[in-house]
């Protein structure tokens, strides 16, 4: 209705001067014209009125038609613009997905190449070596490489499964979970010479529970701790801190390690990504991708900050129950 009121207004106002003119003419002719001429004047007025109304009506029709054509064209242009934008966005998204896939395949190829080369070399050795000691050594080495590939495959399956498998959602006491994860990390022989601390609030109230899968959340926190252990050295500090922030629990795992180069930071959560600093350090390149998948399945977010030479802090944000 709102769209039509200017037309109604125009239809009432535009003929108003003509109607007024005709009315004046009729009144004047009654006042001054002789009796026998009255009907002639009246006919002339009616004719003029008909002429004016007809012209105005034609003008109005013409204007309506022109405006309708203009609106139609404008809508079409808008629609085309929206469609163009949507197509562009879809093309960009599919291009990004294709690029992700290419990157993933390149990395997978790289991860498989080394153990496979080692296995082929080992088998060639085995066929030619007469010494039983060398044979045993080769067999052990081949087995190690096969286990490496098996772990990679198992981790890839974990990632794929995480997207689809139903989550067990029970109230998880994050304080207890963090304590256990830190205790497990402290028990590892490799962390004996690192300082590991845990800070969780007790006052005025402890951390609220999170609805989730204890084992998966434990895996996420443990992976971050294990990562911190791998990238730090004797005397470094590992800090686990947790606090409540509105309806979220924030968990930070910080270390005084070498830090992550700025150009690597945006990629650390990607599958099989191994930054410059990570070369030579054992791992599948799937640990952080698993952390991200677990936290996102729980409705949370992950982020990372780092300074070269000072250290890194990984942050997990999880919605509370």
């Amino acid at each position, binding site marked *: 209705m709102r769209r039509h009121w200017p037309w109604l207004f125009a239809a009432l106002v535009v003929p108003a001067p003509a109607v007024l003119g005709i009315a004046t003419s009729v009144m004047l002719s009654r006042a001054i014209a002789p009796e026998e001429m009255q009907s002639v004047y009246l006919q002339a007025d009616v004719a003029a009125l008909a002429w004016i109304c007809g012209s105005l009506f034609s003008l109005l029709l013409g204007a309506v038609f022109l405006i309708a054509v203009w609106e139609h064209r404008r809508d079409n242009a808008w629609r085309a613009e929206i469609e163009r934008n949507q197509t562009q966005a879809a093309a960009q998204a599919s291009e990004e997905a294709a690029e992700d896939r290419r990157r993933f395949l390149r990395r997978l190829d790289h991860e498989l190449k080394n153990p496979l080369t080692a296995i082929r070399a080992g088998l060639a050795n085995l066929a030619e070596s007469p010494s039983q000691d060398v044979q045993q050594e080769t067999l052990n080495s081949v087995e190690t490489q096969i286990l490496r590939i*098996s772990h990679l*495959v*198992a981790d890839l*399956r*974990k990632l794929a*499964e995480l997207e*689809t*498998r139903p989550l*067990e959602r*029970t109230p998880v006491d994050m304080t207890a979970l963090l304590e*256990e994860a830190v205790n*497990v990390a402290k028990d590892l022989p490799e962390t004996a010479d690192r300082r590991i601390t845990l800070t969780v609030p007790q006052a005025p109230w402890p951390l609220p529970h999170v609805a989730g899968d*204890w*084992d998966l959340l*434990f*895996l996420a926190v*443990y*992976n971050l701790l*294990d990562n911190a252990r791998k990238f730090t050295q004797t005397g470094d500090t590992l800090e686990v801190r947790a606090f409540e922030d509105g309806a979220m629990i924030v968990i930070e795992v910080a270390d005084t390690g070498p830090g992550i180069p700025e150009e690597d930071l945006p990629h650390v959560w990607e599958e099989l990504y191994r930054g410059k600093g990570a070369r030579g350090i054992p791992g599948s390149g799937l640990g952080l991708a698993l952390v991200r998948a677990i936290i996102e399945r729980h409705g949370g977010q992950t982020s990372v900050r780092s300074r070269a030479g000072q250290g890194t802090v990984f942050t997990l944000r999880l919605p509370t129950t």
Partner: protein
Amino acid sequence: METPKLLLVDDETAITDNLAPFLKRSGFDVTTAADGEQALKQVTSFQPEIIILDVMMPKLDGREVLRRLRNAGNWTPIILLTQVGEATERAMALEEGADDYLNKPFDPHELTARIRAVLRRARPGKPPLAAARQLTCGDLRLDRQARRVWIEERELALTPKAFALLEYALTHPDEVLTRERLLDAVWGWDYPVGTRAVDTRVAELRRALDDDPSNPCYIETVPGVGYRFAGTVESA
């Protein structure tokens, strides 16, 4: 020495070519089949005592072979080789009457251990415990379809993981269940320090079952290895 007749079914010749000689050396009389149709023919002609069946195969997949055999009343013990480690896939394998399953890739020694356990457990001509809808052990009753457990008339509140653990233990009584095997079977994949997760869940289960670890009626600790379900299990 007795050499049980074993039918190994897998469409991947790289697997049958390497696994068959290993199983022969482990003391089995092995015949292989490359797909589901061949497998069904071999079951009739070779009459195996146990079948190792791959799930993903051309023509007739392992699941369909299992279904046809069970529908025909054939209860030859079957171990499924699954590629997909998903929990639903594993539950389905057992519901359809498989005696056990093993996720690829596996250690061949683990396979022979499972084969021997299944053969020991087999009740000739009868459905395996793994295919039963309801399992009982004394006062304990577990309904696998309803996913509920009772002791006498009292229903126990178990988390899904603890339920799956109890279900696996009840379907594999009197077998040593290593923590690694429980992780693989119940969790579907290993965790770092996952063995701790198993211990936590077993403790939860013992509390719920009111089972004294030092004098257990149900779950026994096998020191340094894992656990064993000690009770006598019946299918109801």
